[in-house]
């Protein structure tokens, strides 16, 4: 970044665009969850497993709805306080649900094939 002149008042906008980068990281992550859910749904459709398809679609919708309803603004919060934990817990638990559905399905097929 070019050397910006020192501002007298603290700006709500960060010079390093950290809030924007964080917002983009959130979008990548939500997009990844949705793509993962679509891959799982496609795999479930191919083998005709309704439960897998329903679980995958539910994970995708649960990931998308909060991201669409409350998009990240890209600014530092006015109070200076970040509320990361509940959002992190939600997206991590969606990934865990996706993983468990995929693992149960894959291992179940392996056991069934053996």
């Amino acid at each position: 970044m070019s050397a910006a002149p020192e501002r007298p008042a603290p700006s709500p906008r960060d010079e390093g665009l950290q809030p924007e980068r964080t917002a983009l990281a959130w979008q990548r992550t939500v997009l990844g969850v949705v793509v993962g859910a679509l891959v799982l749904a496609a795999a479930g459709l191919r083998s005709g497993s309704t439960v897998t398809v329903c679980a995958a679609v539910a994970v995708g919708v649960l990931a998308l709805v909060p991201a669409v309803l409350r998009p990240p603004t890209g600014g530092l919060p006015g109070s200076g306080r970040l509320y990361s934990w509940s959002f992190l817990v939600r997206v991590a638990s969606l990934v865990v649900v996706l993983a468990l559905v995929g693992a149960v399905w894959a291992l179940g097929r392996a056991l069934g094939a053996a």
Partner: protein
Amino acid sequence: MGRDEQDVQSGVEAPADTRRPRSVYGVGTEPDARFSLANERTALAWVRTGLGLVAGGVALTSFATFADMPGVLDVVAGVACLAGAGFAGYALVAWRRNERALRLRRRLPAPSGLPVLVVGVVILALLLAGYAVGSATGS
């Protein structure tokens, strides 16, 4: 930057901090918001890493429907999915540890998940390479 003034001001004006988890926000003092944002991005990168393992495992499962030795592929896919779940959980653990260290002005803990991830990916690659060689020589 005037960042210290802002911290002092918000420390004076702000009402009691009720954010959860209390084990993080109940200790220390508020760090620069940029450091917390960087910590959040690191946690999200771990979540995406786990997600990549899950998506790869699921893709492998659908590939196993028309491959030789589908049982082997299904086991590898299941293990990859479970490892992905583990890394998503590790993202939360690491975020909590790092945020505590930031608030207490301590050194950041070592990224203990990184060697596990590297070893796991290498094992996954070796298993799939062994499968590829085995199915090529078997057929």
